[in-house]
C-alpha cells in the first residue's frame, strides 16, 4: 500500500519522524489491534491508536459503562449503562475515516494487542493469549498515582516475567490517563518499526518514568518455547 495524498496530509506530523516514516505509517495502517479492556482509564490509549492511524482497532470488553468511567475521555454521563465496547467504538469511528473501530468480532485475528484488563489475572490471561498467538503486545499495570507499562515484542520475555508482583493495583488517579497514552505510544513504536527489539518495562512513579529491559525468569514457559 502506498500512502495517498489524504493520508500524507493527515499524518504529516508523524511521517517526518524517523521512528515512523512512510513505511511505518503503512505498517500502522495494516495492523489489527485487539484492545482488552475499554474502561475510562483505557480510553486515552485507545484514542491515540486511532489518531495514529492504526488500521483496525477491535475492542474486547463485555462490560457496560459504569459511573467510574463517567467523564473519562470517551464516556459522557449520558452513556452510563451502555455497552462499553460499542460505545467507545462508535465515538472513535467518528474520529477517523482511515481506521476501522469495532467490538472484537468472534473470528478476529489480531496482529497486536493492547491490554488494559481490570485485574491482574485477566492481564496475565490476555498477555498469555497474545504470546501464544505470536503477536507483539503491551500490557498496562495501573497502580494509583502511577503503575507500569510492559512492552512485549515477539519473542521477548513475557508479561509474567516482567509484571510487578508488588503492585496493589490501586484505582488509577489522573496519572492513569498518562499511563494509557504511554501504552499506546509503546505499541505504536513497536508496530511502526518492527524487528529485533528488546522487551522493556516503563514504570511511572509520581510522574517520573523509569525504563528497564525485561529479563526472562528462569523456568518460564516463554523461554522454553523459544528454545524449541
Amino acid at each position: 500500500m502506498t500512502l495517498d495524498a489524504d493520508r500524507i496530509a493527515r499524518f504529516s506530523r508523524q511521517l517526518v519522524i524517523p521512528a515512523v516514516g512512510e513505511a511505518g505509517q503503512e505498517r500502522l495502517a495494516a495492523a489489527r489491534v485487539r484492545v482488552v479492556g475499554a474502561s475510562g482509564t483505557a480510553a486515552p490509549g485507545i484514542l491515540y491508536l486511532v489518531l495514529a492511524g492504526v488500521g483496525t482497532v477491535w475492542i474486547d470488553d463485555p462490560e457496560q459503562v459504569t459511573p467510574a468511567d463517567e467523564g473519562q475521555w470517551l464516556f459522557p454521563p449520558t452513556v452510563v449503562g451502555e455497552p462499553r465496547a460499542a460505545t467507545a467504538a462508535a465515538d472513535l469511528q467518528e474520529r477517523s475515516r482511515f481506521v476501522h473501530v469495532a467490538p472484537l468480532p468472534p473470528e478476529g485475528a489480531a496482529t497486536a494487542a493492547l491490554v488494559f484488563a481490570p485485574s491482574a489475572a485477566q492481564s496475565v490471561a490476555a498477555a498469555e493469549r497474545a504470546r501464544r498467538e505470536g503477536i507483539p503486545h503491551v500490557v498496562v499495570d495501573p497502580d494509583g498515582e502511577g503503575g507500569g507499562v510492559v512492552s512485549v515484542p515477539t519473542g521477548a520475555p513475557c508479561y509474567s516475567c516482567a509484571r510487578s508482583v508488588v503492585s496493589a493495583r490501586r484505582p488509577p488517579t489522573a496519572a492513569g490517563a498518562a499511563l494509557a497514552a504511554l501504552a499506546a505510544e509503546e505499541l505504536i513504536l513497536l508496530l511502526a518499526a518492527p524487528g529485533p527489539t528488546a522487551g522493556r518495562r516503563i514504570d511511572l512513579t509520581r510522574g517520573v518514568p523509569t525504563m528497564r529491559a525485561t529479563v526472562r525468569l528462569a523456568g518460564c514457559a516463554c523461554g522454553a518455547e523459544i528454545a524449541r
Partner: protein
Amino acid sequence: MSLSDRSALVIGTGGLGGPALYTLAAAGLGRIVLMDADVVETSNLNRQPFFREADLGARKAVVAAERLRLLAPTARIEAIDARFDAGNAPELVRAVDVVVDGSDNFATRFLANDTAVAAGKPLVHGGILRTSAQLLTVVPGPAGCLRCLFEEPPPHEALPTNAEAGVLGALAGFAGALMAAEAVRLLTGERGAYVGRLLAFEACSGRSRLVMVRRREGCPACAARPAPAA
C-alpha cells in the same frame, strides 16, 4: 478544598493542552479556562484529541469547550478564542489557581512563565518535539523558573518547528496527561513532581532524565519575587 472548588487556565487546546484538558475535567476540576486562537487543521488530527475532520476550519477554543462540556457538565468551562499575550496574561493568570502551558511556541511559554512568576501562581510547563517531551513546574519559592534555565527564547531559526521535526501523537498525550496530573498534585496541596527539576523523556529509548533547575541570580523573571529564605 476539593478540586471542584479549584480552577486552572490551560493555554492551548492541541497536542498538549487537549489531553491536559480531558484529564483535568475527568479529575473533577470545578472551573477550567481554556484558550486558543487557532483553527483546526488537517495536520492536527494525528494527535489533538478534541478535533475531527468535520471540525476543519472551526475555532479550536469553541470546539474544545463544547466537547469538554459534554464530558463534564457540572464544571464551569470558559473558552477564550484569543492568543495569550501581554495584554490579557496578567488578568487571566491572577484569576486561576494554576496555569498549564500547552502552547506551541517559545514566546508564549516565556510570557506564561514570567506572568505566573510575577503573580505568584504555579505553572506547569510542557514541550514536545519529535519523540522527546519535557516538563517543568514553576512555583513560588527557591526553585528556578523556565527563564532561570534558558534565559531567553531561542532564536526563531535555531530549532525546527513541529512541521519540520514532527510530533508523535501518543507522546503528546502522555506529556499532556502528566501535566494535568501535576496540576492536580499542586491543587491538592502535594509537592509537584517537576518543581525545580526538568523532566526530559525520549520515547524511542524509553529513557528519562531529571535536570535540577535552581533559581538563577540575575533572572529577570525571578528578580521581582521575594528571595527565598536562607
